[in-house]
């Protein structure tokens, strides 16, 4: 049992501890993001620009087709509502007061002293969302959450906890974005997710930051017997630096995790994106799929599978396209087997779009730009469901831009 005292001590000691990967940011250059904001009862009443910002990260202001919505601006909750009465959705601070037992879940998967970003988030007493699907409850509609950066030169600290109880099913769409007038800021996001026996969590995250934003998510997912976790991560817009390495721990027999990562690194962007799966129980499975493109930025696609239990099976697939010679793609797959009866495989390829493929489509009458666009679209299509039309349109536009930049 971790006491508040000891956590605080550990966090304080880690305040200068650099992260293992990614550009080093000096957090002293950023002030703490405001802890208060205007509460919005109805997201529909937001101005058109804000609504568009939400839509572009998959968050529907009308709440239509969603079981609930929570919006956080800077370090404050600006909206929280649920239409699916069976699901719990509320600000984490509120949930901690409501459920005494929740403290055992908090800072349990992510150590407070992992690095200075986790330490800062802990010491700032970060708020965020709490979502819980009670035993046997299966969401029909996804819960949507939005983490918005509303102020300049600040660091936003977020702490989320998601719990899927036994045999429950939960779909979550999280969009992260920046108000149009914010250029420079930091986002630190802690997420602890629990998927219990037979439960399913389908988690989709869309990032839509701005050119001078630094992003440091810290995510751990704990899976019990027969649990399933599907993670879709999409970041197609310019950003300064994202470094994340979510870790799924398969602790129960037959657990399954899949990570789909779709990312575009624009000039000036550094994307250090990984996913890690630890096979701690027999018969567990995982698939890690990463499709990344650089149009001039740097992509580091990491993937790690650590096999500690027999009859586990994992496959890691990193494919990276380099659309011009200013960009860099680095694929770093790591496989580790600590038992004999296990099958971990990987497949990594980085390089340009095959000329032959472009010309094949051109011979059917497509222009070079259309051909590249079609190949890029196909490359990025790993079959993510539940993306609203507006976001799909925005994705298509981004892909069309990428097609142009490859010329």
């Amino acid at each position, binding site marked *: 049992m971790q006491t508040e005292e000891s956590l605080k001590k550990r966090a304080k000691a880690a305040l200068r501890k650099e992260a293992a990967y990614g550009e080093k940011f000096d957090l002293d250059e950023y002030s703490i993001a405001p802890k208060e904001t205007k509460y919005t009862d109805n997201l529909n009443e937001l101005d058109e620009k804000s609504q568009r910002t939400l839509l572009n990260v998959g968050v529907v202001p009308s709440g239509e087709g969603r079981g609930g919505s929570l919006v956080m601006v800077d370090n404050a909750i600006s909206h929280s509502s649920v239409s699916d009465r069976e699901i719990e959705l509320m600000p984490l601070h509120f949930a901690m007061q409501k459920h005494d037992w929740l403290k055992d879940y908090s800072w349990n998967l992510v150590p407070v002293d992992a690095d200075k970003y986790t330490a800062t988030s802990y010491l700032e007493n970060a708020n965020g969302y709490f979502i819980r699907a009670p035993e046997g409850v299966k969401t029909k509609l996804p819960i949507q959450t939005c983490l918005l950066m509303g102020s300049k030169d600040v660091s936003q600290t977020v702490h989320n906890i998601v719990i899927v109880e036994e045999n429950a099913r939960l779909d979550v769409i999280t969009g992260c974005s920046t108000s149009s007038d914010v250029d420079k800021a930091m986002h630190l996001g802690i997420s602890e997710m629990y998927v219990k026996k037979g439960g399913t969590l389908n988690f989709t995250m869309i990032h839509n930051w701005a050119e001078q934003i630094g992003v440091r998510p810290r995510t751990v997912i704990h899976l019990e017997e027969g649990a399933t976790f599907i993670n879709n991560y999409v970041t197609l817009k310019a950003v300064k630096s994202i470094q994340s390495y979510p870790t799924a721990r398969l602790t129960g027999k037959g657990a399954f995790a899949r990570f789909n990562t779709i990312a575009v690194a624009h000039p000036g962007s550094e994307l250090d994106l990984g996913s890690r799966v630890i096979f701690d129980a027999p018969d567990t499975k995982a698939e890690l799929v990463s499709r990344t493109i650089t149009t001039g930025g740097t992509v580091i696609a990491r993937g790690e599978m650590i096999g500690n239990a027999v009859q586990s099976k994992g496959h890691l697939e990193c494919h990276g396209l380099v659309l011009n010679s200013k960009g860099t793609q680095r694929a770093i797959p790591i496989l580790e087997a600590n038992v004999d009866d296990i099958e971990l495989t990987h497949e990594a390829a980085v390089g340009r779009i095959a000329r032959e493929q472009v010309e094949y489509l051109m011979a*059917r009458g497509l222009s070079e730009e259309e051909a590249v666009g079609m190949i890029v679209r196909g*490359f990025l299509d790993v079959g993510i469901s539940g993306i609203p039309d507006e976001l799909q349109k925005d994705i298509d536009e981004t892909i069309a831009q990428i097609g142009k930049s490859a010329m």
Partner: protein
Amino acid sequence: MLEVKDLTVEVGGKELLKDVNLKVEKGYTNIILGPNGAGKTALLMTLMGFSGYKIVSGQILFKGEDITHMSIDERATRGIGIMTQRPPNMTGVKLKNLLKLIAGDKDMEQMAESLDMIRFMERDINVGFSGGEIKRSELLQLAAQSPCIYLFDEPESGVDLMSIDIIGSTINDLVHGDSTCPGDRKGHGKSALIITHTGKILDYIEADRAYVLCNGTIMCEGNPREMLQEIKENGYEECITCKLKKA
């Protein structure tokens, strides 16, 4: 329709075609015969404009227009359609999506059915397709494209016996429709240039003229059936001595 004049082509610094001259008139189906490595594929790829085939001299005219230096898509939109010998795996590009883009308003359902391609609609083009499936998918796309001239590179090669009938007869339908005599075909207006190593395709489509290509040059031209017969009897070596005799 298509006219090739004194075409000399290099690939990777090596001359593969030398002073090639040939013609495909409106409504005509001409074939190119020739041994392995003669340069047949190089010729067709050059006609479509694929990169790597460097035109050193000569000219390609299509409907009277000089297309020698046009891009591939400009040639395609002007009405040239090709089935290459070994199309690439198009990972991520679903047959359905490309077909829709090529066909526009055209309904391809029936064609897809007759080519037994319905179940391939959601598949990535050519990925894991058998030889026959690749050709059938190419034919479906060509039908959607509906070009004025078809370029086929050994449509019968690498195809299982089951597929060859449907491929042969579909090629005939696309190029000639119902018409069997050259006069009629002129009215129908579609042309084709078909590379065939074995001549098997002549079981399905009536051709008007044959060219024999050896070592990158056209050796002779003539009646397709007669020439095929002669090659079957004497082999391609004879073409070279024959050409020498004529000179």
